[in-house]
């Protein structure tokens, strides 16, 4: 194609002689601004001026002189000339480009004004000619329909529709007739204006296309990309993915294509693996599943030997799901596996999935556990030691301050906490933030913690060591608060159908002691179940099986005033009433 165009050009040059040169320059001038914006500006500025001029030029044209062409060549060709060569050979940064594009209209304007001043109607013809020629290149260079429409509209509108080509050819004939009488060399072709223009158009079109493509291929100094590749990538993406209504999402597609460039560069030196938290937890949870499989073989043996302490979480989850409560199926199964892990690693007699407490940052999964005989007594001892320390400190204080008057206020005697396996500390609770993470044993609860926990209302953060800031100062951190809330919830909401549990016979004998007598129970072997309708219809078929927590914070009454035996007796009377509440 290039060859043919160049040939054509040469032919043209030969044919048109000097004018060919002007044509070329004109095309250069016209193609200097392939950017739609600038060209629009140029046209919009030129259009109104050229329009009336052409009309006025028609009657004036016969009076034109031969000296004007030279002026035209210098005026229209030379003044914009300095700008385009620079643009074409050197690729200036976008900002400069923009400036230059903005600047180019001005010289053109000047030319027109200069020409006006000179009062040479011929110049208007020449001015108009490039204007006319501009529209065909724009059809190709401007890919967007809008720009094309805008560029094409002004001309026919101003020059009058339909007559344009006719006028043009007329004008040219007129002009050339007058103009080329002196030269009389090769206006033979030019008399036939129409074929001449059509011959010349493809060549200029080609050049314009080349220029436009060159412009599009210009690499951006910022990102190193060029628009040509970007557009082709976009079109490829659209054609590959075939979205519906692609017009509406073209911006997003463009954005996606651009963002795809910002993918991580492959470094030859080091190939570091991204350690997302997702993978860490998946790895931990894998251990859960693997363990399940490995232990599966041993499980059969164990089943024969002893009862499985593991609860049937899945079964109860099924019934809960029927009621519209509960966690997702897969999470339930993970919890089940985590409970299995817990029972495998601790000497656990019985285990139960207590529930899940939602926190701000993380949640707690709580397991209720009863240890076998070998419960860990170490911690109990440690706590005793700590208490002794406290006592020692208080004694030392007394010695120092014996001269000064002491404060009469005595700290009200702390209610001791209940022994493990009794009262509120009957069960041990383990928590973990997510199945697969290690289980953490909660400490036993003290009465004061329960009492204060009743007065405050706090969100759990999900970190066990977080402080609990509240008005009645809470003794302990979130671990203790969590434990206190578990104790309160258990005492209030753990229910069973009437008759499912019964008091053990051994305890029955000891029932003289009211305090300790009623704290243990066992399953009733003769329990035959209660019809569902009865359970639904009346609440009287549901009973609590967890001990009530007294306002004191304990399940069993502790008498804080033990100095006077008389008072103690009085207390006993009161105490008899207490459990009824």
């Amino acid at each position, binding site marked *: 194609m290039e060859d043919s165009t160049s040939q054509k050009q040469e032919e043209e040059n030969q044919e048109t002689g000097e004018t060919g040169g002007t044509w070329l320059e004109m095309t250069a001038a016209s193609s200097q601004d392939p950017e739609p914006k600038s060209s629009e500006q140029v046209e919009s500025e030129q259009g109104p001026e050229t329009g009336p001029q052409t009309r006025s030029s028609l009657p004036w044209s016969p009076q034109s002189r031969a000296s004007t062409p030279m002026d035209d060549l210098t005026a229209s060709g030379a003044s914009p000339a300095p700008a385009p060569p620079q643009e074409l050979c050197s690729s200036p940064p976008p900002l400069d480009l923009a400036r230059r594009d903005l600047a180019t209209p001005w010289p053109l304007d000047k030319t027109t004004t200069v020409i006006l001043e000179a009062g040479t109607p011929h110049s208007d013809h020449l001015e108009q000619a490039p204007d006319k020629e501009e529209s065909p290149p724009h059809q190709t260079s401007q890919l967007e329909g809008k720009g094309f429409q805008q560029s094409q509209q002004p001309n026919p509108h101003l020059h009058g529709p339909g007559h344009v080509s006719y006028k043009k050819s007329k004008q040219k004939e007129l002009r050339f007739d007058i103009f080329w009488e002196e030269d009389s060399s090769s206006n033979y072709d030019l008399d036939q204006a129409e074929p001449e223009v059509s011959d010349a158009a493809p060549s200029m079109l080609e050049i314009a296309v080349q220029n436009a493509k060159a412009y599009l291929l210009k690499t951006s100094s910022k990102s190193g990309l060029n628009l040509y590749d970007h557009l082709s990538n976009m079109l490829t993406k659209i054609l590959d993915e075939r*979205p*519906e209504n692609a017009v*509406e*999402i073209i*911006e*997003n*597609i463009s954005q*996606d294509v651009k963002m795809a460039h910002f993918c991580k560069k492959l470094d030859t030196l080091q190939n570091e693996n991204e350690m*997302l*938290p*997702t993978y860490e*937890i*998946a790895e931990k*949870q894998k251990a859960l599943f693997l363990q399940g499989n490995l232990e599966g073989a041993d499980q059969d043996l164990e089943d024969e030997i002893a009862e499985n302490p593991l609860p049937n979480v899945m079964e109860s989850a099924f019934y809960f*799901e*029927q*009621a*519209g*409560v*509960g*966690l*997702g*199926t*897969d*999470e339930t199964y993970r919890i089940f596996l985590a409970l299995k892990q817990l029972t495998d690693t601790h000497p656990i007699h019985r285990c139960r999935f207590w529930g*899940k407490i*939602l*926190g*701000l*940052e*993380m*949640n707690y999964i709580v397991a209720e556990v009863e240890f076998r005989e070998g419960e860990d007594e170490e911690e109990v001892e440690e706590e005793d030691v700590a208490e002794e320390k406290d006592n020692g400190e208080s004694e030392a204080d007394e010695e120092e301050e014996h001269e000064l008057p002491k404060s009469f206020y005595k700290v009200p005697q702390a209610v001791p906490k209940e022994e493990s396996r009794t009262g509120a500390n009957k069960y041990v609770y383990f928590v973990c933030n*997510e199945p*697969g993470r290690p289980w953490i044993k909660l400490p036993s609860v003290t009465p004061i913690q329960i009492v204060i926990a009743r007065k*405050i*209302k*706090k*969100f759990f953060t999900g970190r066990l060591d977080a402080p609990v800031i509240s008005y009645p100062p809470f003794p302990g951190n979130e671990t203790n608060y969590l434990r206190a809330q578990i104790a309160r919830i258990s005492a209030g909401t753990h229910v069973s159908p009437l008759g499912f549990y019964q008091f053990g016979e051994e305890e029955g004998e000891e029932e003289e002691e009211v305090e300790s007598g009623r704290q243990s129970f066992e399953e009733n072997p003769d329990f035959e179940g209660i019809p569902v309708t009865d359970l639904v219809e009346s609440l009287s078929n549901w009973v609590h099986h967890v001990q009530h927590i007294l306002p004191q914070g304990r399940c069993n009454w502790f008498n804080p005033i033990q100095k006077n035996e008389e008072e103690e007796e009085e207390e006993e009377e009161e105490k008899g009433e207490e459990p009824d509440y």
Partner: protein
Amino acid sequence: MDSESLLLSLELASGSGQGLSPDRRASLLTSLMLVKRDYRYDRVLFWGRVLGLVADYYIAQGLSEDQLAPRKTLYSLNCMEWSLLPPATEEMLLQTSVVSGRFLGDPSHEYEHTELQKVNDGDKVFEEEVVIQIKEETRLVSIIDQIDKAVAIIPRGALFKTPFGTTHVNRTFEGLSLSEAKKLSSYFHFKEAVELKNKTLLEKADLDPSLDFMDSLEHDIPKGSWSIQMERSNALVVLRSLLWPGLTFYHAPCTKNYGYIYVGTGEKNIDLPFML
């Protein structure tokens, strides 16, 4: 949550212990489709469930072509027969603000509220006890409206504004990235912007007008009224409203799955500042 992907959504949102029983799910799947057909909605959302003492209200919402247009709210007690609720008005909000406590589960139940009103009788001004009757249906409407305005949220980019001013579902939305999903700023209130108009030009400079046309969550008052968590080993981000406990929003990062559901008693947590 979208009625079309109800099962997946329920599964994803179940981490908070809020679920639906299998029979409810099945009936919802059927009836919401019929609702969509009968009422000519563009989209039907299963909004959630307001727990009552005797029965629960199941709530669904119908969206028109413009996603931010006022939504139609329907309720049902058995998940099959749906009735349209009237739009909430300011008057209703004012009227029902005196009622507290839990819902009963009977839409025609009337709460009685006694109020002292000054009555001008000639020269004398005396106070008279006036008993105002408030229907539970009205209260339900106003609570749903309050919750919707306060805590209905969607991820950034899930909707986009067209040049014509309407808001549509963004079909190219491919989910938030993992780092974005952990930030409150990438979630928007699912309502017309209120705060956005008060922003300075400087703050608006970085906003994308086709995406950032709603209020972001990060300026909610009080600060910390959202709990944002990663669940299912970081494959799911869950936002829980602390102001309206029971509202759970879930989004699986890098997928189109997102939605919110409210399962709760319809009571606002006015103790929030004490609990943080």
